[in-house]
């Protein structure tokens, strides 16, 4: 069935085209092609997964030559192994649920048909990245995702915040992508082919070429997966519709960065420097983003920072050779983060604000959202038996086994992040669902009610996934590792009771502390206790302000200088030539005074001058 893999990107892409052009005219509206396309891709992904499970560790590749490029033939096609099959299923499930959820969430939106088509295209782009057999093919999907994220984050383009966030996301990821393209070219030239199979089989490092290629690739990964220092776009991307946040954070875009590292893992293993760089970046991002999430008041931004932090877990796992654990965490994260975002969307739609200080007490009005959000939060915090606990501990285990400076750093920072994560998750749940409602109490108070079935069913499905995803690792024979066909040089995950017990204890202590603080005054923010420390946290350590001062303002100044040079230099020259021509013409106009004899005089004088001149020339 793996020869059908090309349908994975093709079906949603077709759905996007159909939905965009005839979506409004077909019965059922633009939701029909979107859901049919997503559902079709989901079925295909299951078939592909079935085939991949039937023959684990095998790679199914089907390519066709497409066009010669620089002395090589560019192939397009699909390359399916366990990793691809599993990630494709993950993408399809989340995308399908987001499409279903959006039919209710975006109901009444005047641009729903465009929105649904963009979501389909986004899914298609991610699936193209997943199944691509060629680095350039992968790049096409990669860039399409950048475009789609720009369009979707800027969906509410009538608001300034959404416009700015869209531009910020596009420019920031583009900054990393520039390095990514160069990295692809370096690797492709080194291997003599851009086919992934050839790139992975290329001989090891010589003269640092591979290291350069791998580090350059990391540039794109850091941009797309929102790692420090290019993480700034992700929290701002919350200006988009909430289902889009779920899609970007769980299945597409940010997952693509981690996926590419996992896909090209042998390249990174052959260039250990790049893994060290990735590990350092991940350590900084992991703890920093979790701390910022502590101080945020905006529900969606808390989740965004938590995504940044969780992606850093995956990156750190890859850096310490915990390949399988990282991919496992990618899967569980997709489930619980999509769940949390969709639950947040359900809450926002009811209370009409993003601010947790305006919420509270929603557990009675929204029982389904409440219970599913609790499941998502427990998975995020890493409480067993929810899947997130085991995937996270897999990464920490890998770090401990790896040892050395990098492994120890990842392990220690990872444990600290576990504590902080538990704290902000507990705060989020308490501030949103417990206590008393703190929003408007007069006539402006919204009617608090549960969301419609179309929105709650995806929540329940994702909650079930968050719980059931612990089965592969609990059942002992490590199904995940078998499907995934981990590359050489990586550690197999195993369930260490000690590690799980330690992090569970940390989670419980941290959550308990926040709960105790909250009990003293349920209306107040439990983390107000942080006092003056909150200020740098709420400002996200001033990274945005720093970029504003160091990058944006100098660039604006430069742009203004260029504008001035154009206005007063180039443009002045052009306009000056026009003015000069007008002036000279105005002088010549005076000669045309209507006196025919004056004209004739000029004629005679000119003829005489010519004759005399020519005669003199001839004589000489």
């Amino acid at each position: 069935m793996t020869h059908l893999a090309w349908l994975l990107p093709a079906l949603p892409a077709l759905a996007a085209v159909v939905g965009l052009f005839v979506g409004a005219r077909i019965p059922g509206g633009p939701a029909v092609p979107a859901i049919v396309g997503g559902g079709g891709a989901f079925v295909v992904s299951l078939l592909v997964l079935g085939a991949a499970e039937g023959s684990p560790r095998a790679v199914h590749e089907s390519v066709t030559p497409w066009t010669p490029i620089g002395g090589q033939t560019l192939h397009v096609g699909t390359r399916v192994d366990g990793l691809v099959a599993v990630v494709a299923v993950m993408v399809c499930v989340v995308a399908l649920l987001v499409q279903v959820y959006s039919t209710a969430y975006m109901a009444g939106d005047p641009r729903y048909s465009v929105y649904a088509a963009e979501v389909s295209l986004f899914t298609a782009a991610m699936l193209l990245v997943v199944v691509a057999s060629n680095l350039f093919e992968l790049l096409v999907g990669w860039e399409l995702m950048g475009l789609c994220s720009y369009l979707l984050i800027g969906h509410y383009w009538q608001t300034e915040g959404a416009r700015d966030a869209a531009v910020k996301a596009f420019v920031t990821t583009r900054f990393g992508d520039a390095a990514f393209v160069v990295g692809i070219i370096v690797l492709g030239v080194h291997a003599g082919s851009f086919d992934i199979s050839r790139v992975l089989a290329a001989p090891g490092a010589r003269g640092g070429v591979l290291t350069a290629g791998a580090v350059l690739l990391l540039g794109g990964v850091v941009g797309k997966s929102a790692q420090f220092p290019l993480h700034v776009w992700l929290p701002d991307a919350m200006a988009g519709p909430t289902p889009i946040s779920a899609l970007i954070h769980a299945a597409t875009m940010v997952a693509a960065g981690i996926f590419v590292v996992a896909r090209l893992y042998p390249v990174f293993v052959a260039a250990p420097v790049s893994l060290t760089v990735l590990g350092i970046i991940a350590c900084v991002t992991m703890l920093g983003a979790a701390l910022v999430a502590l101080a945020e008041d905006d529900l969606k931004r808390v989740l965004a920072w938590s995504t940044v932090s969780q992606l850093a877990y995956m990156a750190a796992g890859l850096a310490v050779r915990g390949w399988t654990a990282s991919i496992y965490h990618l899967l569980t994260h997709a489930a619980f983060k999509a769940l949390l975002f969709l639950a947040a969307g359900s809450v926002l739609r009811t209370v009409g604000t993003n601010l947790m200080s305006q919420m509270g007490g929603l557990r009675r009005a929204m029982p389904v959202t409440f219970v599913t959000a609790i499941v998502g939060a427990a998975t995020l915090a890493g409480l067993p038996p929810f899947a997130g606990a085991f995937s996270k501990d897999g990464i920490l285990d890998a770090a401990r086994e790896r040892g050395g400076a990098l492994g120890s750093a990842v392990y220690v920072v990872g444990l600290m992040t576990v504590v902080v994560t538990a704290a902000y998750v507990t705060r989020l749940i308490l501030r949103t669902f417990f206590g008393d409602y703190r929003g408007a109490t007069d006539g402006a108070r919204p009617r608090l009610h549960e969301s419609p079935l179309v929105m709650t069913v995806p929540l329940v499905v994702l909650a079930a996934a968050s719980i059931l995803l612990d089965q592969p690792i609990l059942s002992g024979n490590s199904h995940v590792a078998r499907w995934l066909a981990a590359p050489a040089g990586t550690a197999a995950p195993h369930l260490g009771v000690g590690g799980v017990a330690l992090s569970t204890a940390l989670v419980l202590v941290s959550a308990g502390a926040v709960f105790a603080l909250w009990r003293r005054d349920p209306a107040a923010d439990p983390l107000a206790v942080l006092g003056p420390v909150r200020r740098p946290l709420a400002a996200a350590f001033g990274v945005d302000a720093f970029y504003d001062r160091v990058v944006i303002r100098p660039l604006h100044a430069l742009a203004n200088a260029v504008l001035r040079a154009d206005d007063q230099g180039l443009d002045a020259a052009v306009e000056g030539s026009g003015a000069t021509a007008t002036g000279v013409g105005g002088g010549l106009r005076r000669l045309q005074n209507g006196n025919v004899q004056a004209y004739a005089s000029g004629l005679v004088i000119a003829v005489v001058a010519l004759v005399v001149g020519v005669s003199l020339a001839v004589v000489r």
Partner: protein
Amino acid sequence: MHLSMALLLSALLFGVGVYGVLARRNAIALLMAVELMLNAANLDLVAFDAWFKDTLHAGQVFALFVVVVAAAEVGVGLAIVLAVFRLRETVAVDELRQLADVDPPVRVDVDQ
């Protein structure tokens, strides 16, 4: 008679014609001056014809052509002069300046 005598006479006639065209105000005098210039050319044609003893007498033939064309030209010219006189009550060329380039009057857009 030497050729140069005829050419000298012709040049004098032409000069008188040029002077008339450039200096006279009366349009009819202007036409007469043009006739002088044409006939100066005719004189040249005939003189060279005789000097070179052209068997086909091309010079004389051309002179006849010029006479015919000049007659037609004077006909048209006098008609124009007559029309101008009826319209403007004058035939002084320096007063006929309707073709001068004058600054256009300031246009006022009614819509705005």
